[in-house]
C-alpha cells in the first residue's frame, strides 16, 4: 500500500487526475452567458419590478382595499383613497410604492383580490437616484423609466 502511494506520488497521479477534469471542461461547451446580449431564462414566478394592472379602459384595477399595504412586512406601500359620494365606493387617489424597502416577498401580489399589484419578471431596476425608486401610480402602470445607455 505504501509503495503504491509512493509511486502515485512520484508520478503525480493526483495532479494529472485533477488536470484531466480541467481539460475536459475546456473542450466542453461554455456555461457562461454574455449578459446584455444573451439573457437567461426568467421563470414566470420570478418576483421583480412591481407593476399595477389596468382594465380594458386603461383605468386602474385597484379597488383601494388596502390589503396589500396591510400585508407588507416593511410597509412600503401607501394607499390613499376617498369615498365616491355617488357610488359609495372607495376610489384610489394615490398609490405609492417605495421600492427601496421592498423585500420582494410577494405577499402583496398574493393578497390582492383583483390581481392589480403584480411583481413582474423584469429584473433590471437600477437607477441613478434614490427618489426614482419611489414609484407613483402612473409609473407603476407603465413600468419604471429605464436608463438607456449609449455607447
Amino acid at each position, binding site marked *: 500500500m505504501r509503495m503504491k502511494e509512493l509511486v502515485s*506520488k512520484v508520478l503525480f*497521479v*493526483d*495532479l494529472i*487526475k*485533477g488536470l*484531466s*477534469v*480541467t481539460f475536459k*471542461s475546456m473542450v466542453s461547451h461554455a*456555461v457562461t452567458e454574455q449578459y446584455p446580449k444573451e439573457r437567461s*431564462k*426568467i*421563470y*414566470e*414566478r*420570478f*418576483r421583480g419590478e412591481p407593476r399595477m394592472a389596468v382594465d380594458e379602459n386603461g383605468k386602474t384595477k385597484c379597488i383601494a382595499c388596502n390589503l396589500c399595504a396591510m*400585508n*407588507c*412586512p416593511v410597509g412600503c406601500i401607501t394607499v390613499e383613497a376617498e369615498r365616491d359620494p355617488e357610488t359609495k365606493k372607495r376610489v384610489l387617489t394615490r398609490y405609492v410604492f417605495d421600492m427601496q424597502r421592498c*423585500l*420582494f*416577498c*410577494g*405577499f402583496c401580489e*398574493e393578497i390582492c383580490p383583483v390581481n392589480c399589484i403584480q*411583481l413582474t419578471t423584469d429584473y433590471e431596476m437600477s437607477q441613478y437616484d434614490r427618489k426614482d425608486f419611489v414609484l407613483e401610480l402612473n409609473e407603476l402602470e407603465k413600468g419604471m423609466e429605464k436608463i438607456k445607455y449609449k455607447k
Partner: protein
Amino acid sequence: MDEVKNINKTNFAEEFVDATEELVLNMGPQHPSTHGVLRVILKLHHEKVVDLDCDIGYLHRGVEKISETLSYKLAAPYMDRLDYISAVSNNLAYIETIEKLAGVEVPKKAQYIRVILTELARISSHLLWLATHALDIGAMTVFLYCFREREEILNIFEMVTGARLTTNAFRIGGLPQDVPEGFEKAVKDFCEILPGRISEYEALLTKNRIWLARTKNVGVISPEDAIAIGLTGPSLRGSGVKWDLRKAHPYESYNEFEFDIPTGENGDTYDRYLVRLEEMRQARRIILQAIDGIPEGDFTAKVPKVLKPPKGEVYHSIEAPKGELGFYVISDGSTKPYRVKIKGPSFYNLQALKKMCLGHYVADVVAIIGTLDIVLGEIDR
C-alpha cells in the same frame, strides 16, 4: 564598553529570537475569507496562533425584535436573510415552529415538496461551502465548477418559489402555490448530473497533495469537545458523532426516507470535507425518493387568515445545512409573537474556532473558518 565585550554572537541571536514579541493581528472585518464581516483578533507568536478572539455583531439587524412587531406570517421573509445561502431551510424552521405552536397539520404533498426543496438547499449550501472553502485554500477551479451546479439549483428555486436567494418558499400550512409544470423533470435532471459532478470535485481535491497538506490534521476537535462546545451539523459529524435531527427527531416526512448519516473519524478539516460531500449524495438520495413518491392531495392546509395561536411557548429545530437551526417562540394569544429567539448553528460552530486554531499557522485560520461553514448573517441576526 563592557556590554559590547559580553555579547556572544550565538547568544545574541537566541536572545533576539526569544525577544520576539507576541503580535496582535486584526483579521477582518473586511477579510475576504471571513464569509461576511467577522473580525478575528489573533495573537501570534511568530506565525503560530497563541490566542484568538472573535468580534461579531457587524451584521446585526435585529431580526428577533422585528419579528415581535409583525404578525406570524409577515415575519417569514426576514428569516430568509439569516442564512442567506440556504434560505429555504430557514423558512422551513420558522414556519414549522409556528405550525407547531398553532397546531396546524400540513398535508403530505406539501411535506414532500418541502423535503425536496430543503434538501436542494442543503446541496446548494454545501456546494457554496465547497466553492469558497476551496477558494480560500487556493483551489480556484473548484469554485467555478461548484457555482455551475449551484446555478441549476437556483433555477429550480426560481421556478418554484419565484426568487433565487430570498425564496420565502413556504407559508403556514403548506406552500403558497402548487409546484409548476416541469419541476419534477428539472429536479430529476439535476439529480442525474450531480454524482458525476461530485466525482469531478473529488478528482480535483480528495487525493490532491496540496489539499491534503492544507486540510489533514488541521483544526482537529475531539468528539467530547465538539459536544461540549455545542457544535452541530457536519462540523459535529466530522468528529464521529452520529447526530442528525432528521433521524433523531424526524420532522416533515423524514422518517419515510432512507438515508445514511456520514461521519468522520479524526475530526479534522479533511474529514469534515468528506462528510459534506457524502451529505450531498445522501441529500440526492432523499430527493429521488421524495420526487417519486409525491402523494396526491392539497398543497396547503386550511389556516385562518388571521392567525392567533393559543398562549404558550414552543421550541422546534431542524437540521439545517450548517447544523441545528432552532426557533423558540412565545405566544401571548395575540396576532404577534411575544418573543422569537433564534438558535443559529453558525453562532455555536464559531465558538469552536479558538479551540481549533490554537497552535496552527495564520494561514490555517482561513481554512478553519472555512471548514466551520459559518454565515455571518445568521450569527449576528
